[in-house]
């Protein structure tokens, strides 16, 4: 162990050697065909099958997931076993809300840097369509007392206390998307930002349309070969992100009603990310593992960072997470070839751009002397984002890191930044080089 740690002192970077994801499947109101672990397994099987090493040679499997089902406690270990890694490969799960998929990569990176691991399968999965309906507290209490009533009289008494209202369910997904500390739902935090930076409905909708068109173009040009086809038990297969709307247009989006601040708000279902199921993985490797298994490097992780901010403004998480990395590595906006800022909401991405443009924000909130400047839209989310392909919360962080590796490869780029906002008021960022 000691020797292993000493050796790792020379380990400066962690390499991404391969990755894959499922197509992202839009939720249709009923539980989708795949559970969170099904998605993770189906994304991971072909990925592991094409490696030059055996699954059992992995040092660990780390999986981010916000809401695994009740049968998926420690979903990371479940995925490892179902993927045929064998009983000896440890598996664990991480939860940092929308940052879970990026957190798992960061955990893998840290373990490789400190010498604990050489080869890590890290990713995220989420089956949002499977989020449960739950009994409320009143019914749970009623049922508990009924079960523990010993005599028929007691049972009868309890039966008489039953009220139909007790059966109104709790929709776990809505609760999960509401900040429990400040009481705003995620859409409302986007409204807060739109107000703060004066983002218009028109700007949001234009951004959303662009996201759809970019995703459609990426699929058409065959730039989405990170996707592994899913097959269900009913003879259907899924080979693309089916949230994409090829006919998306500003006029159409303009007709939608606000979804969160229903009366006078601007954030609609059309300019927000979609409720979606999907999983993504990357394989992380040390120098040693790359040499030993002759692995092709598709990217190297230069740095990672996490930041906190007001929960009401969680959408600005990316600028708070990215700024310290930019400063530490003395990077200017132009030094980054490609950006991914996860599109939780169009308003939120646009606000991130505005925040870095605004010198007062940069001075007061980011402790910078002047404004950073403007992230050019043509370098940001070049193949569309979560508005078009959806935001399976535990997955997106892993997806944007994986996709950036492909974007760098396809465009012969050098440096890229992946970042996302996290419900509860946090941000995460990963700096990648090729």
């Amino acid at each position, binding site marked *: 162990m000691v020797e292993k740690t000493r050796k790792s002192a020379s380990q400066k970077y962690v390499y991404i050697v391969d990755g894959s994801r499922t197509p992202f499947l839009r939720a249709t109101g009923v539980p989708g065909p795949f559970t969170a672990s099904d998605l993770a397994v189906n994304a991971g*099987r072909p990925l592991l*099958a094409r490696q030059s090493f055996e699954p059992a040679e992995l040092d660990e499997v780390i999986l981010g997931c916000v809401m695994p089902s009740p049968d998926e406690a420690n979903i990371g270990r479940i995925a490892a076993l179902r993927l*045929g890694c064998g009983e000896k490969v440890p598996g664990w799960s991480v939860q940092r809300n929308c940052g879970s998929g990026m957190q798992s990569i960061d955990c893998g990176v840290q373990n490789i840097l400190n010498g604990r691991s050489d080869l890590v399968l890290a990713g995220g999965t989420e089956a949002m369509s499977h989020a449960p309906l739950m009994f409320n507290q009143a019914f749970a209490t009623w049922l508990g007392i009924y079960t523990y009533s010993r005599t028929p009289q007691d049972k009868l008494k309890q039966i008489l206390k039953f009220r139909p209202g007790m059966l109104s369910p709790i929709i776990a997904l809505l609760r999960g998307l509401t900040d429990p500390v400040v009481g705003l739902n995620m859409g409302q935090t986007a409204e807060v930002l739109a107000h703060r930076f004066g983002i218009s409905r028109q700007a949001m909708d234009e951004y959303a349309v662009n996201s759809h068109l970019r995703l459609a173009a990426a699929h058409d040009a065959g730039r989405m070969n990170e996707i592994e*086809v899913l097959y*269900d*038990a009913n*003879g259907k297969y899924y080979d693309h992100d089916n949230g994409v709307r090829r006919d998306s247009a500003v006029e159409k989006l303009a007709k939608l009603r606000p979804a969160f601040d229903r009366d006078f708000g601007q954030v609609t279902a059309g300019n927000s990310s979609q409720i979606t199921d999907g999983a993504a993985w990357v394989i992380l490797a040390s120098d040693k593992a790359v040499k030993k298994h002759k692995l092709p490097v598709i990217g190297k992780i230069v740095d990672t960072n996490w930041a906190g901010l007001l929960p009401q403004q969680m959408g600005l998480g990316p600028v708070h997470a990215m700024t310290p990395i930019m400063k530490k590595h003395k990077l200017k906006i132009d030094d980054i070839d490609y950006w991914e800022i996860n599109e939780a909401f169009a308003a939120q991405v646009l606000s991130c751009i505005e925040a870095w443009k605004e010198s007062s924000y940069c001075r007061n909130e980011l402790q910078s002397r002047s404004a950073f400047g403007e992230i050019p839209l043509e370098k940001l989310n070049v193949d569309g984002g979560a508005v078009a392909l959806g935001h399976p919360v535990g997955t997106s962080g892993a997806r944007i890191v994986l996709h950036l590796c492909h974007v760098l490869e396809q465009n012969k780029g050098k440096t890229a930044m992946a970042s996302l906002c996290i419900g509860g008021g946090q941000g995460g960022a990963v700096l990648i080089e090729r």
Partner: protein
Amino acid sequence: MEKKKYHHWKLETDDDNIVWCYIDVKNSSTNVLSSEVLDEFSDVIDTVSAQAPAGMIIASAKEKGFIAGADIKEFTTIEDEKDALTLLNRGHDAFSKLEALSFPTLALIKGFCLGGGLELALACDYRIALDDKNIRIGLPEVLLGIHPGFGGSMRLIRLVGPILGMQLMLQGRTLDARKAKSSGVVDYIVPERQFMKSGPIQIQRKPLPKRAPRHLNILNKLPFRQLLAKYLRHQLNKKIKQRHYPAPYKLIDVWEQYGDNEKAMLKAEALSVAKLANNKSSRNLVRVFLLQERLKENKHSDGFEPENVHVIGAGVMGGDIASWCALQGMQVGLQDREPKFIAPAIQRASKLYKRRLKHPRLIRGVMDRLLPDLNGYNLNKADVVIEAIVENVEIKKELFQDLESKLKDDTILATNTSSISLELLTDGLKDPARLVGIHFFNPVSRMQLVEIIYSAKTGKEWIERAQSFCCQIGRLPLPVKSSPGFLVNRILTPYLMEAMVLHEEGISAETIDKVAVDFGLPMGPVELADTVGLDICLSVAKNLAEKLELNIPQRLEDMVAKGMLGKKSGSGFYLYKNGEPQKQASQSSGIQHREIEDRLVLRILNECAACLREELVADADMLDAGMIFGTGFPPFLGGPLNYARSRGVKEISSRLDELKEKYGQRFTPDAHWEKLVEET
């Protein structure tokens, strides 16, 4: 107490004064109840009885399995009814003594507990089974043309009542652990961690031995017994015919007559089995059982234990081969050009697993092993690669040449072709010895036989490896020399063509099929052709036409041209509604019936003779096995050549001559009949 030495049994007394009686049949990997073993057991009971212990536990000292049943090889030595009765009475006496012991007795069961083994366990007060996936418990005697003969029929009915008891025995069904418990055949199923402890605890608890609930026992009384017997016969008639398979009917007779008198039933049961055992049907079924064992021994494994299979081509055959292999524990890659070709195969796999496994966790486990593999990632990890793509020599050759360089050195390279000679495909391979045919039949999950096709170039080690692969996925491998149509399709084709000629002569499809089914075949030739698909029949027939000098009926070509392809297109010789053929009642006189039967069956037999002459398989027994497990040729007839021998080889050959006079050259007796006549 004096210590006796037994060959097959071992006695130990523990601290609680419980006798552990282990069965460990000498020179055998499984425990079977031969007359020698039974004789010793009788003595064991006397010894233990004299000791008057607190109880007795009967368990197996073998690693796997409790008792597999009676010794089937000994069966074949039975010469007459008297012989049989002597053997049966041995069992009866021993088990009756066991049942009469004054202290509690218990059978501790792991693995298989079948036939005589279960009959022994049923004579104990209690039965406890190890809860694992290897448990098989049942009385499958009817599959050998007899019924339980060591008191099992009476004791099983006493334990679970006549409805369930009779059903289990009539169908010869075996139960897994969960069903054995829920049906009441065993008192408990317990996990390994409590297995050995559970016996003594149950003996000390000493509850009353379980019996069928009283309301079920009413059915053992008249007139209910007669009513139930009638119903049971009716159910049997839907599936089989009494003259083909008399055993289950005899079992009903015995129970109907003596169902409320235990002693009389025991006696009648033994007499009935003694008669059945000397019946042709039973002898042939025992033969089939032994043939099956021989096919399973057909592997001379050099320790080749494949774990990973890669199937290329996800059509009906390829997809079903892949899903079957995954169900049998293999890691499987299923490759095709586009997702739309793979998706239906995954759906069929999922249906199969739902039917077979039921539990979602188990289904998911198998689905996780079946990798839809568009890009062939699994290829270089595979131990067996099976090609099941379009039947085109050039495309296949190109594929094999491409595959050859990508495989591990010891990977089997196999084709599932049903019509192309192996010789044509090995062209251009660096190592032509490597390519072997592994020919599955449709539907893969139900057809036990797999033809292992080899050419003069094929290496012996690859043939053997292919055989051991088949055994590992629970199929029966039959090595067949490469030749058009191989064995099964070649023999079936003249028979199907004859059926079509009969049909053209104006005999209704219903009549033709009825004759074949009456003969004992699982399905008539016309319906079989429809089910296989007329297009496929036509292409197989064309492929064989030259070699077998077949005249392909014009009608068949016309139907295929019109898109009438049989069941899959909704119309063929029959019309199909919801996948069921719409049949009329058939009429035929007895004489006509006999004539049709001979025209159909003798074309099978004549082609069998030709295949033997060409030495396509090792010997006549292997040919019989192939036809029984590959086409469902009536097992009670013991295979086509066994049938020919029992009818008289000479008689068959002269009957062929007669038919030739009447119907033409196609009935010309094959030259091999003369040799067969000489042999007899």
